[in-house]
């Protein structure tokens, strides 16, 4: 049965259509894999009964020749997505056993297209983290290990459960969200493909908010084709989200195999950071060479405000978060720790319900929005954001089709290795990815090779607004050249 979990989403789709396998068989194989991989802690809630029910319904549809685009495909859902009747916590204690009475737009679209839910995936609490170590349910282990070592490694974050589950074949694809790199960084750490779509491409309705102006959902998948298939189902205008874009959803899968000949690929000089790991630099050059070999033209470009992106991000994102998380107050749902009066109840509930990283960001956000500090911090950061956006616009106006950068400054690190003393150490993981969120652009992370220690490394491609198709075309070129990376099973 295990071979069924090693299929790609596209491969499974083919075999289901041909009736080589049934959706129930596929679901059962994945349910077994999930149960056998609890050591990874990728799932915070398994929904096998629901999966089997949905799979049976898919089999009926397939038998009737009415198969929908994702018919019978078992997926994992990041716990940030509200799922009707299924516990949704954002991996925070403060949401307790919260069970939504509503379904997020994105997951509703996945079920509309016939997908099967295996369960809810672990993530950093409220998506705040880069290693999946801030989850109330504990850290997720990457299925990857350094060559000859047993040190448990992080899968990246915040979508660590999604990345780990996809890499370990615990689902055929997963939903994820990306506020500063939370899809692309874990994808890069686990040898999977993750795309953060253009801001406004996928509805935020029903997704627990971290930083509204930066949050964007997207898929993490086994390969570029699977990511394209999932993204089509997840995209689309939603009148319930005022920031949703009313633009047509193309057939992203059709972009694979499109020629990239003549495309201009920007190589931003500001991303050549001091002290960057030599193997990251080598990987970057290798990626550029592959694209060149496919007929693309490499152009050095300048994104002069890049160095301000990370500090500005760590003002804007906490500011929005401090306000977005105010609703978790113990009054209507989730955790409540009684107190002497209402203020006391708020303080006890929020002190106990939020983890250290969330508390830190709420405090930073509250501070930067305070009277007397707003202009110096929040307003200034918004100006920086505008400049970053302009850097990209200028670049694209020169005819650049996409920009190639490393996805992360290093390979995955060990659980507990980083950020213990200095949170900035952890924040630096997002150095290549936050600019994309600040500018609202699409970005894809594609595996491009292994580190000397045998860990996956990824490259990032940044595209023009609503031009994810180009990213899929270019991503496929890198993927074809680099090949696929699968961890050896140890769990």
């Amino acid at each position: 049965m295990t071979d069924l979990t090693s299929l790609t989403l596209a491969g499974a789709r083919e075999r289901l259509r041909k009736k080589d396998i049934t959706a129930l068989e596929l679901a059962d194989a994945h349910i077994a894999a999930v149960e056998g991989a609890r050591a990874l802690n990728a799932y915070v809630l398994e929904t096998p009964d629901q999966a089997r029910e949905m799979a049976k319904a898919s089999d009926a549809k397939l038998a009737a020749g009415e198969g929908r685009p994702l018919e019978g495909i078992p997926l994992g859902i990041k716990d940030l997505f509200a799922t009707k009747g299924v516990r949704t916590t954002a991996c925070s204690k403060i949401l307790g056993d919260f069970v939504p009475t509503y379904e997020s737009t994105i997951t509703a679209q996945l079920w509309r297209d016939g997908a099967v839910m295996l369960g809810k995936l672990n993530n950093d609490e409220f998506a705040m983290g880069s290693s999946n170590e801030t989850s109330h349910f504990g850290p997720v282990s990457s299925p990857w290990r350094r060559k000859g070592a047993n040190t448990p490694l992080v899968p990246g974050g915040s979508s660590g459960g999604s990345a780990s589950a996809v890499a370990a074949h615990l689902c055929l694809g997963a939903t994820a969200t990306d506020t500063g790199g939370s899809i692309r960084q874990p994808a890069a750490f686990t040898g999977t493909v993750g795309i953060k779509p253009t801001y406004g491409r996928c509805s935020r309705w029903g997704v627990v908010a971290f930083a509204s102006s930066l949050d964007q959902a997207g898929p993490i998948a086994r390969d570029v084709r699977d990511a394209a298939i999932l993204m089509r189902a997840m995209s689309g205008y939603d009148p319930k989200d005022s920031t949703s874009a009313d633009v047509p959803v193309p057939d992203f899968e059709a972009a694979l195999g499109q020629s990239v000949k003549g495309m201009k690929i920007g190589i931003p000089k500001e991303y050549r950071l001091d002290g960057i790991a030599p193997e990251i630099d080598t990987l970057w050059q290798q990626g550029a060479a592959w694209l060149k070999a496919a007929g693309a033209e490499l152009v050095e470009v300048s994104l002069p405000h890049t160095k301000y992106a990370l500090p500005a991000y760590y003002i804007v994102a906490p500011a929005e978060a401090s306000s977005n998380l105010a609703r978790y107050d113990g009054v209507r749902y989730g955790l409540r720790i009684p107190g002497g009066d209402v203020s006391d109840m708020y303080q006890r509930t929020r002190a106990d319900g939020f983890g250290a990283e969330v508390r830190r960001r709420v405090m930073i956000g509250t501070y930067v929005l305070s009277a007397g500090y707003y202009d110096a911090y929040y307003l200034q950061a918004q100006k920086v954001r505008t400049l970053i956006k302009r850097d990209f616009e200028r670049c694209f106006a020169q005819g650049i089709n996409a920009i190639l950068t490393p996805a992360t400054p290093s390979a995955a690190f060990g659980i507990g290795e980083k950020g213990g003393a200095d949170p900035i150490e952890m924040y630096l993981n997002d150095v290549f990815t936050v600019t994309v969120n600040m500018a609202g652009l699409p970005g894809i992370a594609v595996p491009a090779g292994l580190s000397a220690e045998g860990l996956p490394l990824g490259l990032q491609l940044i595209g023009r607004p609503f031009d994810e198709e180009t990213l899929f075309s270019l991503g496929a070129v890198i993927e074809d050249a680099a090949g696929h990376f699968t961890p050896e099973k140890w769990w």
Partner: protein
Amino acid sequence: MTAQDTAPSAPGKLIRGATGNWEIVIGLEVHAQVTSQSKLFSGASTEFGGAPNDHVSLVDAAMPGMLPVINAECVRQAVRTGLGLKAQINLRSVFDRKNYFYPDLPQGYQISQYKSPIVGEGIVAVDLPNGERIDVGIERLHLEQDAGKSTHDQHPTMTQVDLNRSGVALMEIVSKPDLRSADQAKAYVAKLRSILRYLGTCDGDMEKGSLRADVNVSVRRPGEPFGTRCEIKNVNSIRFIGQAVDTEARRQVDILEDGGTIVQETRLFDPDRGETRSMRSKEEAHDYRYFPDPDLLPLEFDQAFVDELKAKLPELPDAKKARLMHDCGLSAYDADVLVAERETADFFEAVAHGRDAKVAANWVLNELAGRLNKEGKDIGASPVSAAQLGTILDLIGEGVISGKIAKDLFEIVWSEGGDPRALVEARGMKQVTDLGAIEKVIDGIVAANPDKVAQAQAKPALIGWFVGQVMKSSGGKANPQAVNDLLKRKLGL
């Protein structure tokens, strides 16, 4: 934003202290609930009443992942109101979050407009009871969400929260500090309420909390700069606004005359005890950490949208008053009273249509208003319709009934209803204009009272006695003019 001193000191408005005269300076922030089917950012109903938490959507309860979507009708209402206040309409405005914790504020922030409101500066002309007219500047109007309601007296230790109002659209209408007395403040709110009700953008029902005011009061010596102000929160009747102003001004004068200083703070008006009480000082004021709501794009529309709304605005009180004075010849006072409530004006216009406007005004303002007042009824609930009253006036005009009979007829229609014309017929209330019949009555009375005839011939004013006798024996139905004419002839006067 610095407040400009726009209204000159008027000696008559000053209040007297122990050490001289003081001038009151008032600015108002009026919160008007927008008339709309659903809330500002959710589809939940705005209906008043209902069981607690009956009208609450997932958005209103701030469930995880819920997002606001602007209600276009509320935007239209705000623009219409701005037009009614002769104000600048901003084609681009921004919604901000005002952050604070309170159990009846589920999101932990109120969505409001801080730096860029939908409506900018405007003006309201206010007629004062003494006939004076002042212009009150409008600083801005912005849209914001109402909060829910906390109840503290239903449980020994718990507060109960009703979110029915949570998210209902409010317009905050901020005046400039142009008002100089309690009477001016009251007249301004009354006028504002009248405009809102004409526009149909707020029902103005202060008892239900649809209209409430925060009153900013300061005092100063005439000619001096503005004093330190105190804000009196949530005053919910026009009468209380007047009382709150006077009470607060007196409190401040007393402090200043005792050598003290005014502390800027938020206060509450207690109408039962006739005092204002400190709620929180400036130091305790919240830091609301306003910032643009990232869930909402800036609110943008074009001039054509505004023009279309403008073209469909109803006639507003000022225009209507001018028309009634000019076209109908009504006095300023009568016109003022008639236009204050749109329903009264509509009623009057229906009665006056095709009839003598002054007579119509007289009946509406005296007979009808008096009767309504006596029974505590609104004109909307008047048992006598405009059509019925119009028919009564027609019957007078046609000479079918006298003015006196008309009042009796009005009473019958009030209590029993029915078509006045049919009632006159059925109950024999028609005026007798048959000269033969009247003559017969007169002849009888003249013959029976030779002494009175002699007296009347000596002193013509005594004809009144004869008129009374004739009217009495005709049951009041004889045409008074005809009786007079005939009597004069018969008596040889």
